């Protein structure tokens, strides 16, 4: 009977409009949240748990809790410390030269010339092809007997003997870093090109009228205005390169004698080849901590940049 009495009014919804909107919003998020939960959050938790166990896949009878045992092993493992140092060499060698060459490429690609769109697309190619493809292409270029690099260097007279680039303890690291530079130049070129295009042209014209030369304009206009994007691009790249394992895994597998073993490939080897999930878990936690420390430092630096800019 009450319904009749209320018929004249607009019925008050059972759940208010605001709550309904909230429910709809959350329901849109459910699939993405589930994905992240199943493929990232839970696995990270599992990795942390694994790091506290003796967990070797083909020795299930030995599976037991060992507390910080894997971490103690890690601190005493000379290969681990070597991989940390190799990671530093790998990251800084790669990123510094990628940045310099990418900056030069961005300055070139910013100029107006015929066929600019085509040149841009072509120069970006190394960046989008699969890592395993990059690794194999360069393995073939570096090949001691049939590789074109040895052949060209011999013909130019810069070398007298064929060099086994990837199986020499001294040359393997520079060789993989060079490949990574080839691959990473386009990333910096894209980022810095976008930054260059955001700089108003009037600034350069005004400086030109005031008599500033090419170098002066670069130093006083281009560099300061690009600083925020340089910081962001470099930081992203440092983290990404530190984590990146595909290229070294394909080209050298960390060898010869761990000369190119970086921390991420070492973790991969422990999980993939040795099936030692406990130790791989401990290494993962270290990778994670290094990443977090770097991100925290980076956030402090960028906050500084924003305040200055």
């Amino acid at each position: 009977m009450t319904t009749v009495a209320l018929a004249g009014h607009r019925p008050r919804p059972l759940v208010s409009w605001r709550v309904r909107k909230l429910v709809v919003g959350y329901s849109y998020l459910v699939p993405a949240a589930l994905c992240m939960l199943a493929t990232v959050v839970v696995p990270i938790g599992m990795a942390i748990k694994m790091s506290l166990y003796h967990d070797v896949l083909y020795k299930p009878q030995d599976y037991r809790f060992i507390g910080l045992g894997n971490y103690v092993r890690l601190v005493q493992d000379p290969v681990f410390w070597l991989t940390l140092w190799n990671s530093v060499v790998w990251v800084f060698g790669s990123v510094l030269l990628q940045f310099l060459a990418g900056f030069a490429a961005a300055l070139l690609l910013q100029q107006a010339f015929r066929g600019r769109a085509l040149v841009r697309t072509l120069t970006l190619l190394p960046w989008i092809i699969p890592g395993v493809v990059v690794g194999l292409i360069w393995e073939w270029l570096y090949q001691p007997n049939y590789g074109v690099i040895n052949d060209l260097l011999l013909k130019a007279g810069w070398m007298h003997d064929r060099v086994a680039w990837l199986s020499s303890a001294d040359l393997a690291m520079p060789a993989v870093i060079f490949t990574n530079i080839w691959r990473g130049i386009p990333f910096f070129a894209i980022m810095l090109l976008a930054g260059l295009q955001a700089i108003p042209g009037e600034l350069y014209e005004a400086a030109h009228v005031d008599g500033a030369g090419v170098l002066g304009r670069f130093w006083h206009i281009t560099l300061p205005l690009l600083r925020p994007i340089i910081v962001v691009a470099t930081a992203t790249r440092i983290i990404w390169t530190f984590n990146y394992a595909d290229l070294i895994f394909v080209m050298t597998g960390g060898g010869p004698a761990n000369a190119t073993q970086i921390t991420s490939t070492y973790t991969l080897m422990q999980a993939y080849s040795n099936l030692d999930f406990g130790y791989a878990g401990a290494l993962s936690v270290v990778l994670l901590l290094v990443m977090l420390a770097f991100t925290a430092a980076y956030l402090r630096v960028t906050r500084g940049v924003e305040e200055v800019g």
Partner: protein
Amino acid sequence: MKRRRPAAELAERLLGGPVLWAGLIALTAFALAPFIWMLLTSLKSREELYATPLAYLPVHPTFENYVDAWTSPVTPFSRFFLNSLWVCSVTMVATTAISVLAGYAIARFRFAGRDALLLVFLATQMFPSVLLIAPLLTQWRALGLIDTYQALIYSNFSFTVPFTVWMMVGYFSSIPRDLEESAMIDGCNHFGALCRVVLPLAAPGIAATAIFAFVVSWSELLFAISFTTETSMRTLSAGLLYMVGQYEVQWGPLSAGVVLSTVPVAILFTFLQRHLIHGLTAGAVKG
């Protein structure tokens, strides 16, 4: 000042002319030479490939390497190709649907934990994928998903979804709210307004997101080698590595395989380029 002028002008003329052209040629040559060498290699016969002195150009170009790679019973490239196509297509469609919904919710609704969620999506992009291998392998083994497409597709979400959600938030934020609000006053519910008003406007962005998801899953290697054991389940990346692992490296068929793996992503990328670059740099330029 006056005396320095001619020298400065000469420097500028040089930089705009010869230096620019020399730089561009060097840049393009450096980027392309390795590809060209691989292409030439794939067209050589076995004798030319291992000739001394090195033969730079194939005298009798042949497609036998491509035929070998494609039909080989040991390393069936046609199978690898189809596996990759299937895994990447499903990843692409699912990732796009998931990130359209999540991106729209984050761009349009204010709710508790919104910033925290955005931060999770950003932080995950920075996580090393080697960290996920052991736990995911344990997880897929427990679920009996080893040697299935599902395991590869689900694992791909770990790196596609965080990035595409960010891209979608950017696209949706740039679409004015008034349009959906008027659609909702006209009687559409939220989902209707999303499908009929917002999606058509965001179509270019959504297409870019989809292609991005396809391209990055095409490159995926570590999950593919860890979660499959049978040759018939390998993707292109894993299959290429498997070809290297087989006895002596056969550079002829391998180079053909490398070319075949490069072409699809290179074509997709030329379509995607402008959108992807916009998506990648938008945040960075502002920050």
